[in-house]
């Protein structure tokens, strides 16, 4: 109790700090130095030596003083300096140049590109490293233009940017997270989401963290892919690390940036449903021109609704972000405020976020510096309450509401006069229109024609009369202090953490269901999660002679506190109030958990003569989640590299500028699937209705004192090549990831009283390659064109399933289509029968009704040839993992225009699209067979066959963006530093395979996050297309 009070006090102090910080910002002064008498103005232009283009933002400093400036939009600078002073021109990617101020007042400087252009600095765990010295597999995505993609989430922006990282739009409703998989699915029982690290703080694997970061604040995203690189994160590294680095303050006068875009969203494909007219035509064509009675009624009724259009009504996204950045030599800051409003393409999916961020770094003295990062945000998401398949499955003849015309067909006698009082404006539902007398042309009293296919409410009511929202307030904070002990040897202390307040509300009104008030409900869940981190490291970064040494060693302590409470109410008499009155309360609980992690970590990176590279790391993680017999885990890694191009025999070769081979091996872990107390045999309170109500205590699991992390062992050789002065580049990685000691809720005999026991068993292997090709096709002053191509291939194999090989899993017991987990095959594989041929229409009693209907059953093949169709004829029908994912990006610049185009494709994956069963009305009893139906023992339901296994291949024009940068000197005069406008589109083209019957081939996770039923598609939100326009304004 005391502990929790302390935590909340701490965070409220942060709150106050936030407010103070906001008010203090304008008060930072970036003092101008007093000018001395013999100063004179020095001006000039800085260009790139290679192409003569002006360089914007080059730092020009007077050596030994605090005075400095940066070049403007045209590469021009102007600075006061005295004769004999030394001006230093520095710019990332270029060699720093110095000049001595002489008699002249003008100096035009041409900066040479740094020959070690590859020496971009890459953020790795607990430090940075020169890209040329990297021996593991780390991909860096710099936010050059990602913030112009009109999407609400950082992870969505990374689609197609990194080889080996598959970001899948599983359910792209507004605000929903995509699924991120680094080099395949390693866990059998749990999500394999990567660890997210923001500015050095590991926040967790929950994609929630990526929803509150504004892309405009992101400097770069690094992804640590191989186990050797991620082993520094110990028991949390096995699924890769996504490291987000936010923009820091920069020395110089305060600069403001305003970025904004607006985009219009629509669904590219809406042709899955059949219209009434099309169906009538089809029926006449196949039924000698005749319409069966039901269709005669439908034709007479004369209503048509395009449910795709109603439910996927399009949306709009707009974003505004204002940032300020600047600083003195000693104190630098960046602050930003952003707002985003995303109305999804579905009828009721919306997402809004407001985000503030402050990064502040200050140097207190030569030895000591500190900084803070503060990021409060608030998000609100309204969810589409039902699956898309459910929203569009009803008959196309059903109108939305009763109107003057259709109300005459409402049967006021049926179901004890349920619709006796039907009014114009009421939701229409199918049953209302049953029992119509086609001869008398009026509703009948039991002898008429029925056309309803469902007793459900119309999906419009199901959607509009429900309200599901998620509100989150997050504060992410992080402070550090660095003490330089000796040159290049420093101590760093970091304290940080995050707090999340989440509120979920769920309301179903009286008209939301056919059961009316009896099914009305209101559920409110609130949770608060505190996570605090303290991290102390000693760092050494030193070069002497030909030796480059980088060392980090330290200690980290983390704590998580989580509390959730829920109130549940039901049986509302009316829709007036959606909060919970005491009278309607039917349930509620609170729940609390804690977790702790203690870590010791160390790493040495060593390079000799820039040629021979070695990296060794080790981490010990102790977690409260591990069983007492395995409290601490050890996670070592080693990697080596050889830059052959630095050897004498290649050094002067004009053709090859970089040739590096590298090999890494590491062991890392994943503790994400373990609950905080899973290793303990728990006894929890249970209720009964004895004597009214009384509480007992029941054992809920079997204790496992050996419970531990899942282990990943990965071997990763790779090569990096760059030729012709950086004109062509290639990186190739092969990897073999072996995930061992996998946590399994292993089925055990129920005679024990339990169905499963959580154990560390099982092995999964992911192996594959990543190929990255870069080419600078054309580089001239006015025209440049570069291309990047990425290819990823991954193969997933279940190696050892701890005796459970052949396990069949299903998702929905009403549609028990099967998956099999069989050793030697992927973790998730579709299982079932192979279709032979359709049942002839002549054997179906009502082949033309319902509209868009098809028979529930289909003939299947006798695979084993034993003459009978039985479960032995089932086989593996496909798997949901792509064989090849690629992307192709082109960046073209012509004078002040820039164009970027990125295509992405995925091949070889399948989904089990159960939505087809709903949309095709397969379960209708109208589809029963005639008595003379032949070979009735050779049909099975379609859901058990490959009829629903559909190709998930796609090729998409993910992003296209055309920008224009205003380059007029006039802008400067009105205070505008830079201005760029652009138009763009996302998913402008999205090509799906012919046999796919849906709106989103990437939707593979309606199996509720279970890796064993991955690929189950049941009405995910559709892929959307966004056409947008935006501007970036600097002043």
């Amino acid at each position: 109790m005391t502990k929790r009070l302390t935590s909340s006090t701490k965070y409220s102090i942060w709150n106050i700090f936030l407010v103070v910080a906001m008010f203090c910002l304008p008060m930072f002064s970036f003092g101008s130095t007093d000018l001395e008498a013999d100063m004179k103005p020095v001006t000039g232009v800085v260009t790139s030596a290679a192409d003569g283009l002006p360089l914007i933002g080059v730092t020009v400093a007077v050596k030994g003083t605090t005075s400095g400036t940066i070049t403007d939009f045209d590469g021009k600078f102007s600075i006061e300096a005295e004769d004999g002073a030394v001006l230093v021109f520095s710019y990332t990617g270029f060699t720093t140049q110095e000049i001595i101020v002489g008699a002249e007042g003008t100096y035009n400087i041409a900066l040479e590109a740094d020959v070690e252009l590859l020496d971009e600095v890459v953020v790795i765990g607990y430090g940075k490293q020169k890209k040329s010295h990297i021996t593991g597999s780390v991909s860096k995505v710099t936010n050059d233009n990602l913030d112009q993609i009109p999407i609400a989430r950082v992870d969505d922006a990374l689609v197609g940017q990194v080889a080996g990282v598959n970001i899948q739009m599983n359910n792209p409703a507004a605000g929903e997270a995509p699924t991120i998989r680094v080099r395949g699915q390693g866990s059998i029982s749990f999500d394999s989401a990567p660890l997210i690290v923001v500015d050095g703080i590991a926040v967790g694997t929950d994609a929630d963290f990526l929803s509150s970061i504004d892309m405009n604040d992101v400097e770069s995203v690094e992804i640590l892919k191989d186990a050797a690189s991620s082993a520094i994160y110990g028991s949390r590294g096995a699924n890769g690390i996504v490291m987000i680095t936010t923009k820091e303050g920069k020395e110089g006068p305060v600069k403001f940036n305003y970025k904004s875009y607006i985009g219009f969203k629509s669904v590219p494909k809406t042709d899955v449903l059949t219209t009434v007219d099309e169906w009538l035509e089809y029926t006449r064509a196949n039924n000698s021109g005749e319409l069966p009675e039901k269709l005669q009624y439908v034709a007479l009724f004369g209503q048509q609704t395009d449910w795709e259009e109603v439910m996927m009504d399009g949306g709009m996204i707009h974003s505004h972000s204002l940032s300020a950045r600047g600083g003195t030599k000693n104190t630098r800051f960046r602050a930003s405020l952003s707002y985003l409003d995303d109305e999804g393409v579905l009828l009721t999916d919306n997402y809004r976020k407001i985000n503030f961020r402050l990064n502040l770094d200050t140097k207190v003295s030569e030895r000591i510096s500190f900084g803070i990062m503060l990021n409060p945000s608030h998000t609100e998401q309204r969810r589409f309450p039902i699956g898309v398949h459910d929203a569009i499955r009803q008959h196309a003849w059903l109108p939305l509401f009763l109107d003057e015309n259709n109300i005459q067909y409402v049967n006021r006698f049926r179901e004890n006069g349920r619709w006796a009082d039907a009014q114009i404006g009421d939701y229409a539902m199918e049953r209302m229109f049953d029992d119509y007398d086609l001869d008398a042309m009026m509703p009948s009293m039991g002898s008429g024609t029925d056309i309803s296919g469902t007793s459900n409410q119309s999906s419009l009511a199901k959607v509009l009369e429900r309200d599901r929202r998620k509100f989150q307030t997050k504060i992410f904070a992080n402070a550090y202090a660095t003490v330089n002990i000796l040159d290049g040897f420093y101590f760093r202390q970091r304290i940080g953490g995050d707090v999340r307040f989440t509120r979920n509300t769920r309301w179903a009104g009286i008209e939301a269901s056919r059961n009316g008030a009896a099914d009305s409900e209101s559920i409110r869940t609130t949770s608060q999660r505190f996570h605090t981190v303290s991290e102390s490291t000693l760092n050494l970064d030193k070069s002497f002679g030909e030796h480059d040494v980088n060392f980090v060693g330290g200690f980290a302590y983390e704590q998580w506190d989580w509390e959730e409470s829920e109130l549940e109410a039901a049986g509302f008499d009316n829709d007036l109030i959606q909060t919970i009155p005491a009278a309607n309360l039917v349930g509620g609980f609170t729940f609390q958990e804690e977790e702790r992690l203690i870590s010791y970590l160390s790493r040495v990176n060593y390079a000799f003569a820039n040629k021979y590279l070695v990296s060794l790391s080790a981490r010990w993680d102790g977690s409260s989640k591990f069983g007492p017999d395995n409290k601490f885990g050890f996670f070592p890694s080693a990697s080596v590299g050889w830059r052959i191009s630095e050897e004498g025999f290649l050094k002067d070769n004009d053709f090859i500028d970089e040739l590096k081979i590298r090999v890494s091996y590491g062991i890392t872990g994943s503790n994400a699937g373990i609950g905080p107390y899973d290793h303990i045999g728990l006894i929890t309170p249970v209720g009964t209705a004895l004597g009214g109500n009384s509480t007992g205590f029941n054992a809920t699991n079997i204790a496992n004192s050996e419970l531990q992390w899942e282990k990943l062992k990965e071997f990763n050789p790779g090569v990096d090549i760059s030729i012709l002065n950086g004109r062509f580049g290639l990186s190739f990685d092969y990897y073999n990831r072996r995930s061992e000691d996998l946590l399994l809720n292993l089925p055990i005999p129920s005679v024990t009283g339990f169905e499963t026991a959580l154990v560390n068993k099982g092995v999964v292997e992911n192996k594959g390659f990543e190929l990255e090709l870069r080419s600078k096709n054309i580089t001239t002053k006015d025209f440049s064109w570069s291309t990047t191509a990425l290819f990823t291939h991954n193969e997933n194999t279940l190696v050892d399933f701890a005796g459970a090989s052949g396990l069949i899993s299903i998702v929905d017991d009403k549609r028990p289509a099967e998956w099999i987990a069989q050793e030697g095959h992927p973790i998730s594989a579709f299982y079932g029968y192979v279709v032979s041929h359709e049942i002839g229409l002549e054997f179906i009693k009502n082949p033309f009704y319902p509209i868009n209907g098809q028979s529930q059953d289909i003939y299947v093949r006798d695979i084993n040839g034993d003459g009978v169709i039985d479960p032995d004829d089932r086989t593996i029908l496909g798997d949901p993992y792509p064989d090849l994912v690629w992307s192709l990006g082109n960046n073209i610049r012509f004078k002040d225009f820039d164009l970027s185009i990125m295509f992405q494709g995925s091949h070889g994956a399948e989904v089990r699209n159960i939505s087809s069963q709903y949309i095709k009305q397969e379960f209708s009893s109208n589809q029963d067979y005639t008595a003379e139906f032949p070979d009735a023992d050779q049909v099975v339901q379609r859901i058990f066959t490959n009829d629903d296994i559909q190709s998930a291949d796609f090729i998409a024009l993910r992003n296209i963006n055309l920008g224009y940068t205003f380059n007029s000197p006039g802008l400067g005069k009105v205070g505008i530093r830079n201005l760029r406008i652009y138009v763009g589109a996302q998913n402008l083209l999205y090509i799906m395979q012919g046999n796919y019957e849906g709106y989103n081939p990437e939707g593979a996770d309606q199996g509720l996050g279970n890796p064993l039923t991955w690929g189950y598609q049941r009405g995910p939100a559709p892929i959307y297309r966004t056409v947008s326009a935006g501007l970036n304004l600097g002043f």
Partner: protein
Amino acid sequence: MKNIFLKSFFAIVCVALLAGCGKDSLILVPPSAIGDTGFYDTAEQVEGAVIAIYDGLQAIPLREFAATEMRSDNTRTKSREGDWAQFEDFAVLPTNLVVGLYWTVNYNVIFRANRVLENLDVVTGPLRDQFEGEARFARALAHFNLVRAYGAVPIIDKVIIQTDTEYYDRDNEVDVLAFIETDLTAAAGLLPSRSGMADGRATSGAANGLLAKVKLTRGDYSGAETILSNLINDPEYALVDDYGDVFYSEMNSEIIFAIPYLDDDANESQDYSFEMTAGGVRSGLNYPTDDFISVVDPDDTERSAILFSPNNAAEVGKFLTQSADARLCGNDWIVLRLADVYLMHAEAIMAGQQSTPSAAAIASYDAIRERVGLPSLADQGASELTRDMLLHERRMELAFENHRFYDLVRFGVAEDVLSAFAAAEGHSFSPTDLLLPIPQGEINVSSGLLLQNPGY
């Protein structure tokens, strides 16, 4: 200034370092649960484990109707879909979810009972007898459910874990029934009578009633008759006047053992009431078959009014929910009631014969008929109570209470009746359908020790 900064900085570092060190800080106590070491130390805690047995029992009736009523000639599904239709088709697969679930929930109750039995040492006196009696009653009930549904099943008489493979294989039916009888006999002696126990908890009456049914199942008719006539004469039990009150006046004087639920309580409610309506997520389960409807005596109006729902005559009317939320139903599940005892009494006297002239048997039979205004045996012009009459009466009186299938088995007519019924429905019935398959999932994890029933 610099000094102050340095000092405070190092202070922070020290605090941070101190806060975390040591392995002990990695041992956390769950705030919302209790670790199992150090529980069951007091009588109150053991009673907590006893009450947990009743929580476990709440899971048993949820889908039991599918494996009993829908597998008999009494009921069917509305839509004949998926796993559910397998019961009425007599084509139950070992992978059927209900088959797996029913096995699991019963063994879970057995586990809970064994937990109590192995922790009784801290309890003394009458309370100890009561707890032991409750646990042994529940353990027997669950084993009885299992042996009737699956045939030979493993007897679990202590808490086991997954490495205790010697408990995986099946014990033969005779041994299981003997084990059940031992437990029930002991429980009947240990438990207080109804007036001494809270509603819903096991009593000596409940143990005796169930014991009698076990004896009937084993063919020990005379043993059963003694117990049953004692129960009929027990002043703590009486038939209620109104047939509807049996179901809609809960814990009435006729109830010998029932599993209670609460309306509109997310945790303590059941949803079988909901599933048996068209509103259910399965669009209607446990609908009376045409065969059932056709044999209802037109004069049996008092019972018919309860057998069929007034809202929808195609639905069962015994468990209509009174809750505001349609899915959170509070109707208790009656496991054993006095009317069943009366009819078992007649059955015990008949002792496996085709008929009986016994006045005591006829009196018990008549008591049930007269309560609902139907003519007595004599008024029907008969002098002997026949097996068919008794079976028919049980079918009507106890309809949809999950007795029918086992009644047919006990009366030795299951094969004939169900074959004829299946043929009329266009399905085929074979004698092996009298037992459910052992759940495939259980066979898969049994290291080959648990064997399937014949015919599956």
